[in-house]
């Protein structure tokens, strides 16, 4: 993880550090995204561990808010690792990162709308369909 942080901090000025990173990993061609293989292996390992944790949430049968919060935490950590390191978003310029990452966040508004809507539907179903009036 320290690896990741160093790269994020080091990549803000685009050109000179690009070559620096390539030199650090012992590569002749400074081109495209070039990071040490070890970084990918570490992230791969973390994804395995986090997946195992989320499987264990079900295996141990946690219920209620504990279950949901654990599932969401492991999910967001995995998604963050994949997007930031595997998809190289951590090293892209902010203009691209914001253009790509912000719109999906707005889906949460849609989620909120549909939560209200389905609560309402559920209420109507309970009132009119389940009780023998």
């Amino acid at each position, binding site marked *: 993880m320290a690896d990741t942080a160093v790269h994020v901090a080091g990549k803000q000025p*685009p050109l000179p550090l690009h070559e620096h990173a390539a030199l650090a990993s012992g*590569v002749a*061609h400074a*081109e*495209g*995204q*070039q*990071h040490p*293989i070890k970084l*990918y*292996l570490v*992230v*791969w390992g973390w*994804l*395995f561990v986090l*997946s195992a944790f*989320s*499987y264990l*949430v*079900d*295996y141990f*049968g946690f219920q209620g808010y504990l*279950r*949901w919060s654990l*599932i*969401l935490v*492991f*999910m967001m950590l*995995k*998604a963050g690792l*994949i*997007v930031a*390191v*595997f*998809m*190289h978003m951590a090293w*892209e*310029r902010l*203009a*691209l990162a914001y*253009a*790509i990452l912000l*719109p*999906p966040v707005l*889906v949460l508004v*849609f*989620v909120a709308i*549909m*939560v209200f*809507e*389905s*609560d309402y*539907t*559920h209420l109507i*179903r*309970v009132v009119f*369909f*389940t009780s023998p009036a």
Partner: protein
Amino acid sequence: MAETALTNPEEPPARMAGWQGIAADWSSDQRAFKNVSWGKAMMWIFLVSDTFIFGCFLLSYMTARMSTTVPWPNASEVFALEIAGQHMPLLLIAIMTFVLISSSGTMAMAVNFGYRRDRARTAALMLVTAALGAAFVGMQAFEWTKLIMEGVRPWGNPWGAPQFGASFFMITGFHGTHVTFGVIFLVIVARKVWRGDFDHARRGFFTSRKGNYEIVEITGLYWHFVDLVWVFIFAFFYLW
């Protein structure tokens, strides 16, 4: 670039007439993603739109599950396997998750070797990725078969809310289709890498920029996205 856009607002350049003027204005020096090629930017934008599609599927699943008065089938039991008399909840799904994550790992390394112009390793790692992806689709086919034999249909199932089948087939089916297309895309690009198309700029699809292995990264972006979607499906559909 910022200067050309901002310093001279009162004096716009002379404009050509009609559509040519519109095209000239839109194509003038207005590049937003400075160090990202059009191919990569377009793949990212496609992935955003795909995010919305999968977002809508998961949303409709949430709406169906929240609004039904019939209990939702317990995924932990539905997807359990009996192995040597041992009852293992969600076992197949866990294996599928690990297979897909592994394929993401090999893909990330393929991208890395691609930029080092290590053709053999890049192609080999991409083929490993494709094989893991194909294994994933195979396990999904097994899972579908098992559930269909047990009586799950888009309009009903033996355990509870009838919307379960519709949500399951729609979400996992669409995801499996993405994996399948990813495998095909991977094999095509791996073949080009293996043949050295990118080194001698052979004529063809995406191969014209000599010595440029960016297409490997673009393929990788798609593949990691497929893995990313599975992270959300695993959390919301199988674990919730």
